[in-house]
């Protein structure tokens, strides 16, 4: 299929871009979801604002313990070791390998994934787990929304139609944080049936902090709070991780049935994958 007719605009500044959004434009960044949706005629924008020519949006900066990822930073950036310091960079490196395939990673952007909010998105799950904050700009000003309040459902977020998601910020992880990311999918390039990212801090043999992000375990990305609570204060062990997996599956997740992954199967996979991810984040 072909897109319906639309106008195309390539703003040179964020100011021009938000003006275009105020006029009803859809944002084109990496284009890996928008263009497909337009071809399938599920999205019919009258105006497309291509932000790829705006200087500065491709910045990746670390300052004061915070990582800021600009709207044009491509997925593949996170494949480079050292692009992001410490365990956060390690976690992103483990996650990014699961995103589609190399051509899509070369073009698509992390911020674009957050704006699109596919329930199976790896970045969205990590954003909620890591207490990320998204920066939204419009002609009305700038506001910041914590990831935990940002995702409202499949492809639904707190972003207003006239707001441009200019950046996402993550607190860096402490150097002694153990991280892991695992994904279960049907083929090498298909969407995750379930994906799990975890960051664990263990001090003196006791788990002091746990962050678990779940992708495609509900209609939106989840942070597995109940499973995290089950971990903190315990020593890392296989039975503890298995119990956390079951808690995530039973209490945190709200799986939606899909072909080849009904609710029972998906809950089972969540339990298995959470336990495996935790074991990998903190070898026992």
């Amino acid at each position, binding site marked *: 299929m072909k897109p319906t*007719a639309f106008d195309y605009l390539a703003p040179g500044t964020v100011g021009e871009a938000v003006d275009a959004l105020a006029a009803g434009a859809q944002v084109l960044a990496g284009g890996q979801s928008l263009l497909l949706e337009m071809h399938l005629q599920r999205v019919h924008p009258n105006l497309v604002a291509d932000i790829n020519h705006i200087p500065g949006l491709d910045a990746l900066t670390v300052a004061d313990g915070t990582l800021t990822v600009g709207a044009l930073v491509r997925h593949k950036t996170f494949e480079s070791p050292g692009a992001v310091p410490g365990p956060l960079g390690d976690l992103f490196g483990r996650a990014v390998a699961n995103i589609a395939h190399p051509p899509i990673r070369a073009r698509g952007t992390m911020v674009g994934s957050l704006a699109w909010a596919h329930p199976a998105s790896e970045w969205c799950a990590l954003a909620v787990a890591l207490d990320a904050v998204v920066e939204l700009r419009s002609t009305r000003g700038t506001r910041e929304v914590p990831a935990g309040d940002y995702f409202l459902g499949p492809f639904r977020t707190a972003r207003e139609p006239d707001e441009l998601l200019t950046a996402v910020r993550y607190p860096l992880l402490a150097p002694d944080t153990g991280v892991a990311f695992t994904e279960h999918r049907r083929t090498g390039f298909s969407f995750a049936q379930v994906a799990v990212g975890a960051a664990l801090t263990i001090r003196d043999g006791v788990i002091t902090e746990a962050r678990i992000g779940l992708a495609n375990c509900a209609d939106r990305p989840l942070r597995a709070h109940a499973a995290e609570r089950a971990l903190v204060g315990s020593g890392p062990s296989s039975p503890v991780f298995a119990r956390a997996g079951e808690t995530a599956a039973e209490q945190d997740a709200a799986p939606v049935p899909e072909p080849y992954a009904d609710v029972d199967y998906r809950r089972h996979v969540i339990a298995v994958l959470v336990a495996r991810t935790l074991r990998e984040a903190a070898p026992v």
Partner: protein
Amino acid sequence: MVDRWLRREDERLLTGAGRFVADLRVPGCLDAVFVRSEVAHGVLREADCSAARETPGVAGAWSAADLPGLPPMPDTRQGEATREWPSLVKNRVRYPGEALAVVLGDDRYRAEDGAGRVLVRIDPLPAVVTAEEAAGDEVRLFDGLSNVALHGEAGQPIDDEVWERAAVVVESDYRQQLLMPSPMECRTILCVPEGDRLTVWSGHQAPHRLRSDLARLLGRPEKSIRVVVPDTGGAFGSKSAVFPEFIVVAWLAERLGRPVRWIEDRRESLLVATRGRGQDQHVRLAADADGRLVAYELTVEADVGAYPHLGVAFPMQTAWMATGPYTTPQVHATVRSVLTNTMMTYPYRGAGRPEATSPLERTMDVLARRLDLDPAELRRRNLIPPEQFPYRTPTGRVYDSGDHLAALDLALRTLDYDGWRAEQARRRADPGALPVGVGLSCYVERSGGERGSLHDYVGVEAGEDGGVVARCGASSSGQSHATVFPALVAETLGVDPARVRLVEGDTDELPGGVGSFGSRSAQIDGAGLQHAATLLIEEARERAARMWDLPVEETAWSDGAVHPVRGTAAMGLSELVKRTGPLRIDERYEADMAFPFGTHAAVVEVDPDLGTVRVLRLVAVDDCGRALDPAVVRGQAFGSVVQGLGQALYEGVPFGDDGVPVLGNGLLDYLLPTYAEIPPIELGETRTPTPRTPLGAKGAGESGCIGTPPAIVNAVADALRLDHPDRLQMPLTPDVVWRAAA
């Protein structure tokens, strides 16, 4: 000059210089877009095209009501009943995606804009998408007619006491899921009317058949239509028929006097391209205490799609091949073809033989487990030995030749069967190790075609310039004909292959043609071309004999030239043609069907906690008789093994409650194996020529779709030590495997 490319086609196709129908630029050509039903079954109340016609760039828009003379699909008569398949829905939608209206625009964008403005109203009816649901006739696709369109059988019914007396009887149910053939290029047609002639460009497997179908439907002489097949991006059986969209496009091009084309896109294709397989099966297999097969019974319920077409009788292919490669004395297969609310089921690579091989080979493994016999040994005790060929099966086939034991042994050696059995035992003793399984599948298939399509038209012509033109009724959609056939003709004539050029896929070039399907091109057209080249040599010798005033037997042929037996003065083809006039042999060549065979083997590792299957090793030993070009045969074997892997693990058509396939995200929903899924594949060959042609070539290229799926499924069942294989139904997605393992 030494070719840098392995095949003649490679440089063109791999450098982007291929010319497919969508690449042809014809001034003034209109693009057709079809407005399609979003419901599976319903009554069409309205398809109002008036707003579409007002859309800029739209040349016209029509529903069936606007085109009273539009011919329906051909070949829909089944027995006494005719169930009309209109080319555009008249009043009843019977499958999702069925075309309700057509919009022609200056380009596809504008035509789609127009299509979006066609106003459609459909009152939905309950949809039936499985044979089981449809066979009860509670929902009828055609008022007053049963959904059951055909009953058929092969072999004789087996007495109850045979089952009662047998030492072991295994019963199972299997599903051969619907599959999408998924060629890289979807269907294409471009119709260009010029004066009294209509030129039809189409990526197609059977151009002469398309010409005669269109001539009949449009009511014009065959000679007034020329069908040309340019480069074609795969077909796998899905491009051998005429389709409703083809009829609409040809009819409008003719009526409007303008070029019109339809280039199917992937989204359309997943809804309305032909689909393959689609059988629910029940089997009973009986053996004596030594594991010698006594009787086999196969019951097939086939979901054949919404309209009776060629696909209705197609499950008989499965029935006729039910015997497989074994000496089972009694075999009985019954078929019931049932209309369902889907696009028609039609031949897809393997076409009836995968559906025959899979239930038998899976049941053989169950039987082996029941008898506590090694599955390879069970097969060895039952394979038809070489001295019994030609072998007449209880289901009516006469196998031409075979050495099945040799193929089995080579597959076991290539796989290192004993080594993997040892590894399996080691892992079973280690509670931390993931289980591995080994699966075998012995197959026999049929190539060449059925009665009525066992011939083709071939020609060899020598030119004054020393060039040779080979013509045949085959039509390549990626099978390397331009490499293989000239080499064969050159070898027969003793000339440099660079001098021989192939012309095919053009109805103006030959009086008739059958096409490329059923693994027939090498076997029939190849043997025909070899035969025609031999006749050309005979004709050359006769002409030389007359010229030299010698008896024919005093002339001889070598290295592309005729010469007197005594003496040295040779005359090449070019000189002969200059002296004696045009030299062209045209033949209708016919040969009987042949039966390629082989053994496939798989090793898998299963993660029972998640249900994931990792294929560690695939071995495919195929015997296609003489291989005209071993590299080309291996390329096709490899591709079909990957498609077999797709059926085993990944591909399927899930339906929503409304009967509409859940494939809205295209190939993100219909998962094909890609390079990340391809395991190490090792190919092996045995060579048992068919005695049915002097050439000795049997068909090749469908083997992987036939032999590989049951090898993989058997390996998974072996890894999990399953006693009830019914729970493992393809595709073996992780959820299916997890449930079976639980």
